[in-house]
């Protein structure tokens, strides 16, 4: 039987995974990390809440989610720092003059050489520049190339694809049999009527399950004309106004104009 692996300050991996669920950062300078994701460290490291104090310049250059700032801290100093998040799989990614958009709850930490910005798509943040970041996922991450259609719950993020859009599959609700299905609810729904579609060049990151990680607030964008979901917080989930009757396929009928 193998006991637990024993690490000291020197044997901890340098910017690599300790095991699938923990990542060791070789800190010399500064890193941004989400609050509460540091589980251990060696060396001289101090953690500053951001939004005030001496870090103003750094924040200005690499942090662009003003209302989201309370969820992040800056680790500063020298040493090794171990990051983990509720036993989710953790991976590091390198960007070189690139961009990657990721679900806000999945991002754990990033180098300040990257700039973090709110994505136009609600619930996502974009990293731009050169550097390393650490993200968690529920199950190992699979990289796929577009064109591909992805279950919304399985999407972790994407790099370089400018075209995330919605795709609806509801062919089975058409036609005579579809009409019977629709009127009676007989047969139910496949649960796969809605996907995110990606085309063009790039990479799409998928997690292996359809269980999402808790979403982190990204902050509301300014209330301006032309800004998606600006000002008003986006309402999550379609609340049916009346109790659902047995013969209804829920909101699908309304959404597809059937």
């Amino acid at each position, binding site marked *: 039987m193998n006991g637990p692996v024993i690490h000291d300050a020197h044997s901890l991996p340098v910017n690599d995974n300790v095991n699938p669920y923990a990542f060791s950062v070789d800190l010399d300078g500064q890193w941004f990390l989400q609050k509460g994701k540091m589980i251990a460290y060696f060396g001289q490291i101090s953690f500053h809440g951001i939004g005030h104090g001496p870090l103003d310049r750094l924040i200005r250059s690499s942090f662009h989610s003003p209302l989201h700032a309370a969820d992040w801290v800056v680790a500063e100093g020298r040493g090794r720092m171990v990051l983990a998040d509720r036993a989710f799989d953790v991976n590091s990614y390198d960007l070189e003059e690139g961009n990657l958009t990721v679900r806000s709850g999945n991002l754990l930490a990033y180098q300040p050489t990257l700039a973090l910005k709110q994505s136009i798509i609600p619930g996502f943040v974009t990293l731009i520049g050169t550097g390393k970041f650490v993200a968690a996922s529920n199950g190992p991450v699979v990289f796929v190339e577009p064109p591909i259609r992805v279950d919304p719950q399985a999407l972790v993020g994407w790099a370089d694809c400018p075209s995330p859009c919605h795709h609806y599959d509801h*062919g089975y609700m058409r036609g005579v049999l579809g009409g019977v299905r629709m009127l009676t609810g007989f047969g139910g729904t496949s649960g796969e009527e809605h996907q995110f579609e990606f085309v063009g060049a790039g990479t799409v990151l998928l997690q292996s399950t359809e269980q999402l990680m808790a979403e982190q607030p990204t902050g509301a964008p300014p209330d301006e004309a032309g800004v998606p979901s600006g000002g008003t917080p986006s309402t999550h989930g379609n609340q049916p106004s009346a109790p659902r009757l047995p013969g209804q396929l829920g909101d699908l009928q309304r959404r597809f104009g059937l």
Partner: protein
Amino acid sequence: MPFRSLNSRMVEAQVLPGQRLFSQRGAMLAYKGEVSFTPSITGGQGGVMGMIGRRIANEATPLMTVEGSGTVMFGHGGHHVHVIELSGDTLYVEADRLLAFDGSLQQGTMFMGSQGGVMGMVRGQVTGQGLFTTTLKGHGAVAVMAHGGFIELPIQPQRPVHVDPQAYVAHRGDVRNKLSTAIGWREMIGRGSGEAFQLELSGSGTVFVQASEEKL
């Protein structure tokens, strides 16, 4: 070989025109190409009679038909996924553990009480499997889910395998299973080992066990 493991929790399936797959509803993670997902009213094969049989046997799990041409990735609930290739033999598995399977496989239900009489019925109660189980027969592949990793144990004649009923996932081949009990006075006074019931599998074949005692 339509299924390919991407990692421990995901499989990729090739869908070709004219062939179809069945998969659990909502288990599709992503797809390429033109593929359609239709909820299967009858929950698999065999038409209406097959559906009624499965409803009675409580082995009706919501399935969908996957057709078209392209590749589809499946995964569900963070469970480990294992691909089992069948070449003419029969796989016995609970319907809710099926992630996806080849449309060319013959799907049926089997009354477990027929193996072992009254003890067979007790077995169904203890394992939580009920009295029926799903069988898949023919040539093709099946993606089965388990909580925790998969362990494959060979069963040889004269070498029966005992498994914890909660860890049992599926078995294949010519296998008889019965519940063996080891209830003594310790169990009566509440000082049992917690392993009073075991599933004894004998014959020749393979049993698949999960590295966890949690049911799906």
